[in-house]
């Protein structure tokens, strides 16, 4: 099923053309995505919804270069992601895409600030002495600057997810993908986290959120996946 292109006059940042992804399982071939076309522009705030197993995570993984399509093309920020060699994918991802996970996935042995500095270390995007101030600035932005030197286990779930968002923003990525970022949070905290993510698009970052949430305030587009096929609301 085809999707309309990005709004005229705005730069197309994500382009999926005829993308299919299937997995080999003991029960046979399982199609996770089928012929998905998707165009996203800079600053888009997109919600990917659908039932469990509908292909939301697969779609986000393909955009983030975490997975490769079985068929079709994935072009993100000008890079033909499906053709990038494995070696080039990590640095590309570190600079271009920020990833937020459902279970936060902060590294437990690093402090919150260190977790945020880590992508900067990996991609060497700032001078070493600028990395901590940058991390603190991002933590302040998500409202947990006072937790900077604590270990993740000492933070609440909501605080951990905010830290994860700060980490996703560490290298000023053009795209942030968030896979069920509120799935493990209470509704009040979930609202705060969603507000945070939504606010990113105001600064020109394309945000793609896979979610079960039905009512997302300020959402630009909703892509609903049904059995691996996409439909726009």
């Amino acid at each position: 099923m085809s999707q309309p292109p990005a709004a005229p006059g705005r730069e197309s940042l994500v382009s999926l053309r005829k993308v299919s992804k299937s997995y080999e399982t003991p029960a046979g071939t399982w199609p996770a995505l089928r012929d998905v076309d998707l165009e996203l522009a800079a600053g888009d705030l997109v919600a990917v919804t659908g039932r469990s197993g509908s292909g939301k995570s697969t779609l986000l993984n393909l955009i983030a270069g975490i997975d490769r399509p079985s068929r079709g093309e994935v072009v993100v920020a000008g890079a033909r992601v499906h053709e990038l060699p494995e070696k080039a994918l990590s640095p590309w991802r570190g600079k271009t895409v920020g990833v937020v996970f459902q279970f936060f996935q902060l590294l437990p042995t690093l402090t919150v600030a260190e977790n945020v500095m880590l992508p900067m270390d990996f991609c060497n995007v700032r001078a070493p002495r600028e990395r901590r101030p940058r991390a603190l600035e991002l933590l302040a932005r998500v409202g947990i600057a006072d937790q900077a030197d604590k270990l993740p286990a000492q933070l609440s779930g909501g605080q951990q997810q905010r830290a994860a968002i700060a980490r996703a923003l560490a290298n000023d990525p053009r795209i942030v993908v968030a896979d069920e970022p509120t799935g493990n949070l209470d509704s009040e905290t979930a609202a705060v986290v969603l507000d945070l993510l939504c606010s990113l698009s105001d600064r020109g970052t394309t945000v793609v959120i896979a979610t079960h949430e039905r009512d997302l305030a300020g959402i630009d587009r909703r892509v609903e996946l049904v059995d691996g096929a996409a439909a726009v609301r």
Partner: protein
Amino acid sequence: MTAYQRKILRDLWRERLRTALVVLAIALGIAAFSGVLSAYAILTRELNRGYLATNPASATLVLDRLDDALVGAVARQPGVAEVEGRRSLRGRIKAGPGEWKGLQLFVVRDYADVRISRLTPQQGAWPPATGEMLVERDALQVVSGRIGQSVRVRTPGGVERTLRVSGTVADVGQAQARMEQVVYGYVTLATLAELGEEPYLDQLKLLVAGDRTDEAHVRGVAESVRRFVEGRGGRVRRVDVPKPGQHPHADLMGLLLLLMAAFGFFALALSGVLVVNLLTALLASQVRQIGVMKAVGGSDARIAGLYLAQALLLGGAAFVVALPLGLWGGRALSRYLSVFLNFDLLSFAVPAWVLLLSALVGLVVPVLAAARPVLRGVAVSVREALADHEVRGPGFGASAFDRALAGVGGSSRPLLLSLRNGFRRRTRLALTVATLATAGVFFMSAFNVKTSLVRTIDRLLAARKSDLSVALAQMAPLAQVERAVRQTPGVKAFEGWIVTEASPAGGASGPQAESKGLHGAGPSAAHASDADRFTVVALPADTKMLAPEIVKGRWLQPGDTKALVANDRLAARLTGFEPGASVTLSMGPAQVAWQVVGIAREPFSPNVAYVPLAFFESHGHGGTTNSLRLTLDDAAPATMPAAKERLDASLDALGVRALSSTSRYDGRRGFDEHMLMIDVFLLVTALILGAVGGLGLTTTMSLNVLERRREMGVLRAIGASPRLVWRIVIVEGALVGLMSGLLAALLAWPVSRGLGDLLVTLMFRTRLDFVFEPVGLVGWLAISITLGVVASFVPAWHASRHPVREALAHE
């Protein structure tokens, strides 16, 4: 097969790589344990069997001389089953240009009728014809000789003749010739006559009737024979009664093997650490399954049984792998030690008790090791077990230690990750580090003990100021000797000593040939027990050739006449040798009371007492000597043979017969041969423990990576390259290696000191001058870090190659 049993097998199969590593580590432990145990069983059986098959003499009486009539008469004495006349005398054999080695010549009347202390022909002729000599099989290499070769030998009388080496024999009762640096030769009386010696025998070798293993009975018979011989006018100079029914070195070998078996068991116990790590990780990954099993009716005992059965299977599989390896190792070790102790192995059969004990220990150790983690693992409640993975329990950061560790900062986050990740599973880390550190302790101990031995020997030799010691065949006028020495170019200084033997009051002995070597005095005195005899060295009180380390009292002083300084070995062997005490000794025809004035430390020496030469001068031996000490202008090892030859020639020219001459360098070689065994033992132990430790580290790193697979995915998702992920794991492995190296370094000092003392006390009854060898420390640090890198290489590679999506989906 029930579902329960299938789960036992499939869980292990699912973790097959780690299972294989753990099985291999346990197998190494079992192999080491069973190998040493089977060597112990083979050697103790074969050594005594081989030795007893030669019909070793129950006792040997050394007379001035004996004839056939006396032998016949003794044979008819009650309690005597067999008797045979023999003779043994010391000479020298030429090993190269100007190089002479010690020769112990045994004279047998009739080679066709050897009934006691039998010799076994090996190669070449049997029996030796006149003018020929058989050589103990291990001794040929001492003179780099071969069968058919002619060799120059010099008798105690100073006559030098050529003998043809016509064959080799095995003489099980003799120590390994290459270690003693002595050639054992076997000749007939006719050959002895050709060598210019009077052809008589002087030893009665007895085989007692009745219980030959009863030492009191043997001593009783030997004593009655002594009285019988003396009643006929003969003079018995010495009675030797070896420990009945046992090879002279059986005790030493048994101790060494038991020590090795203890370390084999230790290696096995360490391999249990891997079982702990594997099952702890398995249980941690199966908490949810345990919850489900409990929810569907599984009792704690049934579920614990499931995991304990896995431990039992690990032990069983390891035993199957280890058994052939252990048996092969046992054979190899037996062969090595049989050559070392100079006896043949007739059978390599391993008794059933060795197999049973190895199987039992191999099966029990893994189960015992698994017991605690299994019981803890299955104690989890159903609710807790079925709770979501992410909210099951406190993670890193819950303890004060975690928070303190988080305070360790640094500019490299990847390095911090490696460091802090290493401490996440602290019990696993502690066990892994301890296992590897144990190997490190043994590795460093090998270096420390070796260096300490060298230092100890250096100190001993440093006390001996002479470059060359010459033992004379008999007492010689000092003036004549002095003239000969003066005529010898290159001699800087010289002293003439008297070396004799004594025993605590009871017998008589005259001055005789000097004894040497590590196994105590050679031919010696009187009726006292052979173990109580010791060497007495009479030397000028102001000697410049000896400056022993005095540990109690004082050294001899000018003006002393009946003062005695005992070495520490003698003081430990016999009671009453304490400064200030008076001891009465049988020396020659008289009993002499001595005042003990000091104790000298002389590691690796036989029992020796030093007395002033003034005593002998005042008792009729003035102006005589039988032992020379010399310092030379040039004491380099290469110049020694020429120096010895020059001195021999000068002494010969004046009719003085040298029995042996030993340079400082020669003394060192004998020690080095003995040290080899300790070195090999420590290094092999370190190697086995190192392999177990390395496998432990590999298992640990593999488990660490497995448990953190999702984190690796996250790292990749936020921009870490596969190479960086690989490096984080490798650095973690190297840090674990470094930690174990540092722990080993801390422990190595006390452990190697204790271990060195234990080994040296067992083998030589002395203590070490301990030295910590930095080469061992640096070497082990390098090895442990390398092991850490190597052990984490494959897990790191897997971690870095795993698809990010799969890693993120990993539970």
